[in-house]
């Protein structure tokens, strides 16, 4: 069931890849704008590069997450899906995994932009990749749940970030810290504890949101 739902989600995303491209351009434009907020100070830009990367990714994620339920709302497709003899949790996890994948690709695509704009190169590519994978997992689990609620409401563009932003503070903080340590060096070996925190956040919200999703979509 999960495999079938996941296949549907990935197919949907593949067919709307033009939108993905547009979100990437949005994220890159945000990174460009952040550098104007600091001014041409190479040292400061490098110091704040991790924060800018994650803020860019967070802002882009509100677009992709909101969009992920767009297709379900057309012709009341979600109700049709729920009528199938299946567990709504499979639908949730399929969508959350698809969103996670999309955000991971987006995050990896934004890294070169960050490196070029802020001169924030790093050799710790594996750590950086792990942080992006775990950090985007933290965004997509509650983000998918909230998108399911807000997609059915009038003011969805405002409500989704309003609900999501306060919630992902720990994930954002840990991701920024771990990314920053990968870029500026980690003499105290601190990044491991931030990655553990991130993994714990993911574990809690991937299980809790899966449990609660059935309640959110039931009629």
């Amino acid at each position, binding site marked *: 069931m999960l495999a079938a739902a996941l296949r549907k989600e990935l197919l949907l995303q593949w067919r709307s890849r033009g939108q993905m491209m547009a979100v990437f351009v949005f994220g890159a434009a945000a990174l460009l704008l952040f550098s104007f907020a600091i001014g041409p100070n190479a040292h400061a830009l490098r110091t704040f590069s991790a924060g800018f990367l994650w803020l860019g990714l967070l802002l882009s994620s509100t677009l992709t997450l909101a969009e992920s339920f767009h297709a379900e709302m057309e012709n009341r497709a979600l109700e049709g899906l729920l009528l199938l003899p299946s567990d709504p949790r499979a639908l949730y996890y399929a969508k959350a995994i698809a969103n996670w994948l999309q955000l991971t690709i987006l995050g990896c695509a934004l890294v070169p932009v960050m490196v070029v704009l802020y001169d924030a190169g790093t050799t710790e590519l594996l750590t950086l990749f792990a942080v992006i994978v775990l950090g985007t997992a933290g965004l997509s689990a509650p983000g998918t749940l909230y998108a399911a*609620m807000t997609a059915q*409401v009038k*003011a969805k563009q405002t409500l989704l970030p*309003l609900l999501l932003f306060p*919630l992902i503070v720990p994930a954002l903080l840990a991701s920024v810290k771990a990314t920053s340590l990968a870029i500026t060096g980690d003499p105290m070996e601190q990044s491991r504890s931030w990655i553990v*925190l991130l993994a*714990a956040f993911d574990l809690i*919200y991937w299980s*809790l949101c899966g449990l*609660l999703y059935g309640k959110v979509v039931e009629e």
Partner: protein
Amino acid sequence: MFEMPKVSTSKTPYVFLALGAALFLFGSYWGLFVAPPAADMREVQRIMYVHVPTAWNWMLAVLFSFGCAVAFLFNNDSKWDARLEGGLEVGTLFAFLLCCQGAIWAKPTWGVWWDWDPRLTSTAVLLFAFLGILALRNFVEDPVKRAIWSAVATIIAAVDLPIVYMSVKWWNSLHQEQSTPQTVASPFHLPLRTNAFAVLFLMIGFIMLRSRVAAYRLRRELAAPPVRIGEEAGELV
């Protein structure tokens, strides 16, 4: 089943409010004029008599909201939704008051209005989380969906609170040790305890009244549309 909530018309919340207000006047008078000033912080320290009781009771309000949300998801009784609304709104108010009182205290003591301390930051994060849930409640017109979604969002936000606290604690820390009667010298006990109960009673009164308003609104929303005179119910014209 999601049924029409009963609305009690008892006078209990008014009793709590009156008791709380009287105790609050007494405790604050004692704290402001009778208790000695603290040696190192002088008069600024007197804000403790409202700040610390607000903080304690804010945590109770968050716990109460979490409890209402869980209770609602388990038995779908609309009275828990009305109580959740009261808890959320009073919790938001208290979080806002905490941030304001904290800033008033921090400026003369630390020299800054705001600091990235775990307690301060988690209060602010929860304030925004609760504001988001209240906004969600405002935008959802279907009472059943509104109740379920805000219960779900409340549970998610409440679970987040300890994680935010932990993560910000690792990140940075400067706040005073928490004040409890054990860490505070004995001349300060009386006003602090009095005000803690005063704020508790005020909070109970507010939550009860606010839940009553929420229950009235639910009744109006769930009521069948009125039948016009001269038209039988259920008859198609």
